[in-house]
């Protein structure tokens, strides 16, 4: 699945050196390191949002190069929905320990216990509710900059976002009133209570990320590569069968060879069919996909064309 069928796309000429340019990856890495250092220098209480997913692992690899092992000058922050793939949380903890980084975990379930998050029904996705827990963590630690692994190629609202994205005291993004961002003269001035979201890998694409993972031997949670998993087909997606996402009446459970293109909340993340066993295989698959990362894998983004924009206005990263 996810395959382009046009014959010319599978010709080697379409997979030209431009796609695997080391100069291009070098330039992206350098830009990312420059931004990671700028955050370290310009803010008093920055943090790096770290989920254990591939984008945040690439960010962490760049941070390791920028600062050296054991010297990352900000803590890592994870907003836990309680609905994680165990392979991902285990890898997250292992990586933080290897790098000698401080890991702060704040959970949506604590917000529910406090009464600041109320679910409409028990099965509701907790993904959007992460914003509440995130804003609570920002207030608790008085963070003034949150580094995130979002990329502009993910989604149309993301494509509009600045690298240094200003948030008001309610954590809101003001898409119609973004600050001009001229050259690399980043205006990091804040009023009390405000903060920045900073996106050092804005200019990377999904393909760049995978090529970098291949080149730099970035380790990933195992579920990014092919494995056998129980799934059901639902609205064109492969929905993983878990305790939280049981099959519905009339659905047939099948065991398929799958991998995840993106990992997030179990209740909203779907794998794609694949036999890709390493980063090199995934690079080749990524060169020939015809469905976007979100289109192939995210149930929650399909509900409304502006759902990401709306969530970001609410304080989502």
């Amino acid at each position, binding site marked *: *699945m*996810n*395959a*382009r069928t*046009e014959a010319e*796309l*599978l010709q*080697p000429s*379409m997979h*030209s*050196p*431009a*796609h*695997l*340019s*080391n*100069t*291009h990856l070098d*330039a992206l*890495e*350098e830009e990312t*390191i*420059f931004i990671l250092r*700028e955050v370290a*220098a310009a803010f008093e209480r920055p943090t790096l949002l770290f989920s254990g997913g591939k984008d945040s692992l690439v960010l962490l690899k760049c941070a390791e*190069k*920028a*600062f*050296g092992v054991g010297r990352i000058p900000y803590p890592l922050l994870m907003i836990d929905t309680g609905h994680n793939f165990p392979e991902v949380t285990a890898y997250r903890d292992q990586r933080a320990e290897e790098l000698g980084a401080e890991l702060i975990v704040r959970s949506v379930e604590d917000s529910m216990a406090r009464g600041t998050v109320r679910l409409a029904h028990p099965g509701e996705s907790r993904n959007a509710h992460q914003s509440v827990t995130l804003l609570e963590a920002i207030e608790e630690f008085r963070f003034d900059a949150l580094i995130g692994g979002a990329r502009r*190629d993910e*989604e*149309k*609202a993301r*494509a*509009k976002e*600045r690298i240094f994205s200003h948030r008001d005291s309610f954590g809101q993004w003001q*898409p*119609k009133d*973004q*600050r*001009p*961002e*001229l*050259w*690399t*003269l980043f*205006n990091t001035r804040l009023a009390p209570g405000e903060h920045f979201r900073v996106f050092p890998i804005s*200019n990377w694409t999904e393909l760049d990320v995978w090529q970098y993972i291949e080149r730099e031997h970035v380790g990933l949670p195992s579920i990014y590569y092919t494995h056998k998993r129980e799934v059901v087909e639902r609205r064109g997606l492969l929905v993983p069968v878990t305790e939280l996402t049981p099959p519905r009446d009339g659905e047939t459970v099948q065991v398929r060879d799958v991998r995840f293109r993106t990992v997030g909340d179990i209740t909203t993340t779907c794998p794609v069919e*694949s*036999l*890709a066993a390493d980063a*090199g295989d995934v690079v*080749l698959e990524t060169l*020939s996909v*015809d469905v*976007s990362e979100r*289109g*192939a894998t995210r149930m929650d983004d399909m509900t409304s*064309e*502006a759902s990401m924009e709306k969530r970001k206005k609410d304080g989502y990263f």
Partner: protein
Amino acid sequence: MSTTTATLDSNALQGDTGTALRFITCGSVDDGKSTLIGRLLVDSKTVLQDQLAGVQRGGETDLALLTDGLSAEREQGITIDVAYRYFSTAKRKFIIGDAPGHEQYTRNMVTAASAADAAVVLVDATKLAWAAEVEDGTVVKRELLPQTRRHTLLTHLLRVQSIVFAVNKLDAIDDAALAFERISTALNAFAEAAGVQVAAIVPISALKGWNVATRHADWVGYEGPSLLELLEELPVTVQDEAVPFAFPVQWVEKFSSSADTSQGRRVFWGRVASGHVEPGQRVTVLPSNQTATVAQVLSHTRQPKTVHAGHSAGVVLDREVDVSRGDWLLAPGAFEPVREITATVAWLDDEPLVAGRVYWALQGHRWVKAKVARIVDRVNITTLESEPTAQLEANSIGDVVLALQQPLAVLPFTQSRALGSLVLVDTATHKTAAAVLVQPAAAKA
């Protein structure tokens, strides 16, 4: 699918054709920028099925919807902020900044232009009075739209390396060849008067895809390459190599607990603004004026190396000197720090610039207070003449004299992008209010 692609040898694909070209599309509202980008994405097969399905309206594909990603944009049918898009051809990778055309959002266009290697200025052939050559015995001067002129001037001022005019919607005109010829003449006349070098003028139909990705043979007498073929060959921005070494200190790394402490060493990280840095080189620190010798240089990933302009470096000096974030390491004697500069500003804030006000100015990583000592003039974008003014309104371009609270080492922006550029930030709202381009000293007395 895996079985098909797995037969390709990934090693055979390794290679290097350089960095991506960053280009912007700009011009007036409805000149077809979003459609052009949609066309480039579709014709380069970058658009994925789910994204294409998302832009169907009433059975028709609306290419502009591929880039207008904010709900307010879709509601109003206009582009508010830059959409960044990524695509590749067999030859090259591209990063597009789709800049808004509305005058109200000029600040977002300037944002996109400041990072661009090239600009494609769209010109809508159907909006220009190109037909009348002589009316009542007098030659009619063919006027370009104000935003075409404004955006061309801004890209030129910001030293965007290549400016390409794409004359769009010629398919909707009866005598398209004559229209293209006359519009080209008007564009060349304007560019010459403004001192703008034009890389190319290409006739296109973004809607039909003519001359966008592929050539539309012999159309309107044009036999040159398609727009995409042109973009594949355009150069990336050339560094300001001829300027002596200058290095803004971004971040100071202290080794409080390592063995380096005994040597009292710190690493000063930053991006080399001009020249290069290597061990043994003498440097002067601004503002402390102390001098030291470079003991070691690290590349951005901490490997020892000589580092050239445009790249990040870590500099270790041979002795303990007073250096903090915002300071500059400079080639000794090469720069004369100044307390006053004359600069061209693109004013981006809704609050007009007025003489006497104090702003924050940022150069490199250094913040200083800057007072607007005097407004010299404003550019009339129609006549290109300078005219006196009491204030600079949003989206206007003019010259000002800034008095600086502390001395800065500056060069004209035409010589050095890094030493010649500043931003002004409103001290009350913290909004980025202006792009500041330093002029040659005494250029305007």
